[in-house]
């Protein structure tokens, strides 16, 4: 692991006012933590609005404590900054809750606050690696814990049952939303896996927290690899107009996609409310196409805004979309749709699984089927633990497998000669048409809360019944 060089929490650097980079990094650190609290969707109680970002911070700090080398102790200024921001939001968000409470409650709460701050301090300053000699086991357990937590958060039905048993959070679990946790969990799992493979660079606390809860990518990604993010963070940054303007242009394009195209299409896109009422035949195709375009513009718009905002600050986030609906086949589609997620899944799940299966000497078809279907099922469940997302995942997993088999068959028997460009172009157009429609039909599973409603829409699409 390399030693820390720059961009540690540097009040001294700021005081010198000589480094734009240090100032930018300090600003990003503060902004990202503040965004975590400020952007948390409102649940029914102010306490949960405050506790969820606290939990994110705690998990992040604990992960950093596991990963950092013993010598890489966070500075008190870094820890202090986190505590100050936390206390600031505690005052703002919890003030309405304490207005009519007794003195005993206030004293207990203050004691709890002091203990929390002390806990953060200890968690940030001690290195768990000293205590835990069996680091790999601990990393594995942390990954398992994060995955469990992720699935728990995504399983609304389970959350409802738990809240009913515990008698807490009534009315909040239906719309339970833990800001950015899907992405945060993946970033943390990625760092844990990279650390166990020896690929994770040594990161200061401020760098690590900024990476995990990076404000522009907090809500909808993209999911960046820690190594690349940190290299951008450490590179000398000078404010320059072309970069800033390019970033602003990207934000403008993203806003156009999200607020003009996506939000307009949302009025006619497939939705649980309009699905039972839409006229059968062409009107149902129109709402299905509208959904396909809406979800693309919505997500691509957010990604553009995140990439643009990061670029203004000198950070290059990875691209997330590359004209996915023009992909000539389903495999290509998944190379162009939500690219940062698929690359992450490929690196941390698909490839290791495929390697493990290959060692068992199974047939290639079984290996591909198992790896692709389980990968897509995982991606489906990442969106939410429910039947519709599982079916959507299976739809794409089976589609990818079928394409793989077709590709094997076509390569041997239907190969188009390179000189026949016209035929190749026609094949690509037909492929893009078929792929787009396969993906659009897949969205019918994704958009509606239960498969029975999706089947109703399929019947309307094909005029059955």
């Amino acid at each position, binding site marked *: 692991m390399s030693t820390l060089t720059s961009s540690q929490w540097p009040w001294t650097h700021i005081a010198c006012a000589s480094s734009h980079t240090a100032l930018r990094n300090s600003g990003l650190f503060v902004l990202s933590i503040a965004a975590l609290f400020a952007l948390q969707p409102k649940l029914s109680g102010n306490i949960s609005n405050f506790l969820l970002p606290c939990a994110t911070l705690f998990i992040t700090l604990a992960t950093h404590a596991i990963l950092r080398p013993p010598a890489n102790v966070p500075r008190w200024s870094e820890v202090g900054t986190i505590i100050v921001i936390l206390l600031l939001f505690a005052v703002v968000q919890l003030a309405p809750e304490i207005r009519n409470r007794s003195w005993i409650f206030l004293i207990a709460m203050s004691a709890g606050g002091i203990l929390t701050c002390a806990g953060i301090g200890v968690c940030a300053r001690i290195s768990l690696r000293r205590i835990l000699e069996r680091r790999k086991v601990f990393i594995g357990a942390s990954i398992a814990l994060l995955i469990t937590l992720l699935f728990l958060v995504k399983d609304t039905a389970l959350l409802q049952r738990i809240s009913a048993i515990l008698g807490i959070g009534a009315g909040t679990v239906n719309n339970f939303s833990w800001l950015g946790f899907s992405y945060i969990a993946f970033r943390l799992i990625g760092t844990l896996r990279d650390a166990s493979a020896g690929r994770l660079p040594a990161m200061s606390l401020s760098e690590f927290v900024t990476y995990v809860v990076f404000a522009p990518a907090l809500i909808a990604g993209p999911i960046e690899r820690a190594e690349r993010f940190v290299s951008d963070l450490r590179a000398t940054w000078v404010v320059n*107009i*072309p970069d800033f*303007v390019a970033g602003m242009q990207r934000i403008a394009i993203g806003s156009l996609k999200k607020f003009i195209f996506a939000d307009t299409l949302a*009025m*006619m896109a497939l939705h649980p409310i309009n699905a039972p*009422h*839409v006229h059968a035949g062409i009107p149902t195709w*129109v*709402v299905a196409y509208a959904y396909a375009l809406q979800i693309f513009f919505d997500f691509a718009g957010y990604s553009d805004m995140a990439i643009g905002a990061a670029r203004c600050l000198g950070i290059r986030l990875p691209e997330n979309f590359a004209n996915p609906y023009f992909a000539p086949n389903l495999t290509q589609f998944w190379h162009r749709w939500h690219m940062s997620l698929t690359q992450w899944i490929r690196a941390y799940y698909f490839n290791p699984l495929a390697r493990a299966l290959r060692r068992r000497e199974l047939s290639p078809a079984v290996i591909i089927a198992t790896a692709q279907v389980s990968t897509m099922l995982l991606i489906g469940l990442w969106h939410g633990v429910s039947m519709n997302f599982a079916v959507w995942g299976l739809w794409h997993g089976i589609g990818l497998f079928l394409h793989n088999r077709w590709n094997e068959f076509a390569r041997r028997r239907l190969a188009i000669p390179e000189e026949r460009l016209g035929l190749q172009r026609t094949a690509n157009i037909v492929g893009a048409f078929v792929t787009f429609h396969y993906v659009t039909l897949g969205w019918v599973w994704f958009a509606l809360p239960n498969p029975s409603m999706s089947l109703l829409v399929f019947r309307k699409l094909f005029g059955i019944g």
Partner: protein
Amino acid sequence: MIRTRHDLTSLALRTLIFFIAANMIFAAVDPMPQIAQLTLYNHIFPGRIRPPFHFGFRNQKTDITNLDMIFASHKIAQPKHEDEFRVVLIGDSQVYGLGLPAKDTLAAQLNTDALRSPDGRRIIFYSLGYPGQSLKKDLLLIEKSMQYEPDMILWFITLGSFPAHLGFAQSIVNNNSNALQRIQQFSI
């Protein structure tokens, strides 16, 4: 490609000019009556069976109060069949069926009886009730509904509609003041 501050200023200036020009053209042409006719209802989705009104929702301010839009999305905008006897119901929240599912509104219940007129035409009831007791609101809806060839208008009204207080009807009355002035001039 923007590379200098001059380029940036130029872009800002062009954007400003475009913004002003677009607004001036919009004001001069006033395409709202045409835009108001654009709707997915009666095409992709079935027409609305009552005017849009969201009681108690946080997004109440997004209620559609433009009369052209209300009628274009309503079931009444569908072409009238030759064998149809068209009856329009006007009134307050009772006619609207506030709190009731669409199938339980007065118009829907009357339509389930499949009534026929003495000359054999199918009697179809259309709910144009809108929450709020207000003569002004009712007159606006009656006047507009005349464009859709009603054979009969049933106006459910009580003395409660006479006071100037608009209640729920405030936004629909205030946002259609031109139409209201036209009606008032006609009555004088």
